């Protein structure tokens, strides 16, 4: 304790308890306990109306594995990684441009990236639908330009889901990369140029490796929520090709079969934790620090 206390009452010697005990209790009660219960549900069977049959079983996992787990979890991973690549390919140039060419208006250009991410998620999905649907903006433009003679079917395709995921999560890729680029020491770049590196060479040998932390932070912030998304495949994918989130939503909300839903929820959470572990290993401590 930094501050000197003359009194030696228990609470004064343990003032930190006043500060951290309430939240600790809350986290145990409303984060850990629900997760433990989901794990428990995933190992027992439930009858209609939710009566638990309290014998441990692997039946739910078998069911999930046979019906979906492999296929749906693999699809979720592929979608999340592809959307993440799209975010990186769009986000890096954008962040680079703001950091190098933004000048006095840097804050404003960052603001333009942040605003969409603060808008309600369901509205952004709906807005994406307005662009992609049969009578939507893209078809309207293509028809007017004479590029196509009849409207394309873009909605309810895997492409629409990918585009939607990239659109929703892009801001979270730009911000950490921008922060990393903006914090770059200009003298390092000058040194590289003085030593004869071409701009392109300099970018790949100096700038890119030095912003690795930002890239992995952005990767965590985009691929993790994309992996757990259910509204984008539900609305833009027409609820046809499920991702893991759709499976959880269906079994919990529509079917009320908490056991089967729980097994998928556990599998999804395990995958997420594994991915975070992997990305922080690859991206180093900096990746984790840049998230917070």
């Amino acid at each position, binding site marked *: *304790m*930094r501050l000197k206390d003359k009194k030696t009452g228990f609470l004064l010697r343990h*003032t*930190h308890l006043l*500060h*951290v005990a*309430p*939240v*600790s209790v*809350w*986290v145990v009660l409303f*984060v850990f*306990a629900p*997760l433990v*219960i*989901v794990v428990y549900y995933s190992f027992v069977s439930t009858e209609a109306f939710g009566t638990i049959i309290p014998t441990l079983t692997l039946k739910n996992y078998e069911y999930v594995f046979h019906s979906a787990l492999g296929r749906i979890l693999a699809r979720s991973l592929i979608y999340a990684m592809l959307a993440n690549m799209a975010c990186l390919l*769009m*986000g890096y*140039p*954008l962040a680079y*441009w*703001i950091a190098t060419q933004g000048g006095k208006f840097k804050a404003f250009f960052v*603001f*333009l990236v*942040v*605003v*969409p991410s*603060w*808008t*309600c*998620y*369901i*509205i*952004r999905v*709906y*807005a994406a639908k*307005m*662009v992609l649907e049969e*009578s939507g*903006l893209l078809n*309207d433009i293509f028809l007017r330009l004479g590029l196509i003679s009849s409207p394309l079917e873009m909605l309810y395709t895997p492409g629409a889901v990918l585009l939607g995921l990239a*659109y929703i999560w*892009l801001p979270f890729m730009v911000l950490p990369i921008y922060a990393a680029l903006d914090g770059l020491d200009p003298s390092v770049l000058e040194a590289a140029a003085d030593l004869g590196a071409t701009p392109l060479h300099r970018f790949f040998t100096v700038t890119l490796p030095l912003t690795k932390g930002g890239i992995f932070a952005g990767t*965590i912030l985009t691929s993790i929520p994309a992996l*757990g998304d*259910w*509204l984008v495949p539900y609305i833009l994918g027409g609820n046809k090709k499920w991702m*893991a*989130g759709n499976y*959880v*939503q269906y079994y*919990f*909300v529509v079917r009320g079969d908490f056991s089967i*839903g*729980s097994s998928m*929820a556990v599998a999804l*959470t395990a995958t*997420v*934790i594994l991915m975070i572990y992997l990305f922080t290993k690859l991206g180093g401590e900096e990746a984790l620090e840049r998230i*917070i």
Partner: protein
Amino acid sequence: MKSTLFGVTLLVYCFLWTPAGLLIVYSFSKNRFGIKWEGFTLKWYLHLLNSPSINAAILKSLIIASVTMVLATIAGTVTAYGLYKYKFRGKKLLRTSLLLPIVIPYVVTGASLLVFFTRVMHIPLGYPSIIIAHITFSTPLAVFVIMGRMQRMDWAWEEASMDLGANRLTTWRKITIPFLLPAVISSAVLIFPWSFNDFTITYFVAGLGTTTLPIYIFSQLQYSLEPVIINVTSTIFVALPVMGLFIMSVLQKERT
């Protein structure tokens, strides 16, 4: 090289803004469906004012977001102070645990809370369950935002106050709280729209009666009754973060 980069940047900005822009523009269109422009009108905004179901949804969302904002910000401030100022056993564990609600997929958080509320705690679904869920995912945000600011603060003032004989409570009241205020306000400004906008977690724990605005929009979307009404409410949703971010940037300028 530079112009290619600028071209890409412009395209990415278009990608980010076209859908929202489309919503805003067509919320003023006379046409009820789709993107055929038939002239400017404000009648949908007036219609919104007279729609009891939307107003009820907005009111519910406002209540939930306000309660969440106040409670989560207080909890976040107190916890951030404890985590920053003191060394104690289990500190790292607590920090990591606070990351959990942020990184675990929303469907899993929502589903696990649903099971917990209905099967274990028997908390009625509605305001209590929604507010508990919102506090659970908002408090960690407040903690990390405020802790980030604390690292850049000058703490000598606090020690000076104690050395000059003020007790801890007076020091809190006169020094710590005024010093932390900008950080506290920016975390509140962050949490309010976060809670107001939340769809997935609320969807799981809301039960039948408590229709917040995002849930109302979702139900409208499924039956596509009044697309233009969605546009109108959406425009309000876009305006809200612009205002919030504006407040935050003003606060940031004052501090530096």
